[in-house]
C-alpha cells in the first residue's frame, strides 16, 4: 500500500509479535483459539492429550500480533501469548 502521506507515528509503531504458550493437559480442543484468532495463527493438531482432546498448534508463527484474544477466549486457561 502506498501512503500519500506518512503517518505521524509510523516510526514508532512496532508490530508486536507473540510467543504462544500452551498448557497441554488443560486444553480441551474446543478450537475457539483457532477459530477466532484474527491472524489465523493457530490450527488444530492431530495429537491427543491425556484426556483425548486435540490441542492447537501454531501454523503461522510469524503472524501473531500478541493481541491476546486466544487467551481471553480460551475456556481452559490453557493458552496465552507473551509479547516478544
Amino acid at each position, binding site marked *: 500500500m502506498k501512503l500519500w502521506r506518512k503517518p505521524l507515528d509510523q516510526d514508532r509503531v512496532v508490530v508486536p509479535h507473540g510467543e504462544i504458550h500452551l*498448557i497441554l493437559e488443560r486444553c480441551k480442543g474446543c478450537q475457539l483459539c483457532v477459530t477466532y484468532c484474527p491472524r489465523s495463527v493457530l490450527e488444530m493438531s492431530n495429537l491427543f492429550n491425556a484426556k483425548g482432546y486435540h490441542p492447537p498448534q501454531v501454523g503461522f508463527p510469524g503472524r501473531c500480533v500478541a493481541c491476546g484474544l486466544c487467551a481471553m477466549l480460551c475456556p481452559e486457561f490453557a493458552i496465552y501469548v507473551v509479547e516478544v
Partner: protein
Amino acid sequence: MAEELTNLLISEHHPMDSLLRQDRLPHIWCSGCGLGTVLTCFVSALQKLELDLNKVVIVSGIGCTGRAAGYLNLDGFHTTHGRAIPFATGLKLGNPELKVVVISGDGDLMAIGGNHFIHAARRNMDLTVLCVNNFNYGMTSGQVGPTTPTDARTSTSPYGNAEHPFNVPYLAAATGATYVARWTALHVRRLERSLIEAMNKRGFSLVEVISPCPTYYGRWNKMGDALEQMKQYHDHSIIRHRTDPAEADISLGGEIIVGRFVDEDKPTFCDLQREAVQ
C-alpha cells in the same frame, strides 16, 4: 507427545494462575462450554480492578456455573442450590468491607433462587451478580428452566417448551438493580468491561452472559457443536446500550439484544439502614 506440536511452547503456568486454584484445573466444564471463557473474562476484569483481592468473595449456588467459586483463588463459597444470594447477603452485612460477587447459573438464580434475586435487587443490596444463562440446567443434564425459550426442546420439554422465559435484565431492572448488562460469552472484551463496571458499582448489579451449553441445550436444539452455538449467539446479538430491558426478550433462534441497559444510582440497603438508625 507435546514435542510434536509445532511452534509453541509447552508451559505449566498461565498468567492468570495466581487467581486460580491451579490444583483443580482442568475444570469440569465440557469442551467448548462458554463457562470457561466467562471465567477468563472475570479473572481478567479482576486483574484490572483495583481491589484488595483478600476482600473479594465469590459465592455460587449449585450448577455447572456454580462451580466457578471453586476455581478462583479467592475466598469462595459454593452454597446450596439457589441460595447464593442470601448467603452473600449475610457475608456482606456481616462484613461490609467485603466485595461480594455471586456467580451462578440461570436455573440457580432464576428458578429455585428467583425469590432471593428479586429481593436482593429490591433492597439494592450491594452485590454483583454474574448470571450465566445457558437456557437450561446444565449440571443435571439439560432440563427446561425459567430462561429456556418457548418451544425449545430439552430433556424435560421434549415436545417443546410451553413456558414463556424470563427476560433476566428486565426482571433485574424491574425489581431494582442499579446496573444491568447482557453479553454473550464471545463478547469477551465488552463482558470484561461490564464486569469491571458492575464490580465498581455501589448497589445491586447484574451481568447476564448468554453462554452455550453444547452438551445439552445445543444438542437438543440441533445447534451444531460448541463453536457453532457460540457463533450463533454472537451473530444473533445486537448491541444496543440503554435499551429498555423490557424490549430485551429472547426467543428461540431470535435476536439477542446485548449491551449496558441500566446504570443508575440509588441508596443501598446499608445506606438506608445507616440513615434510619441515626
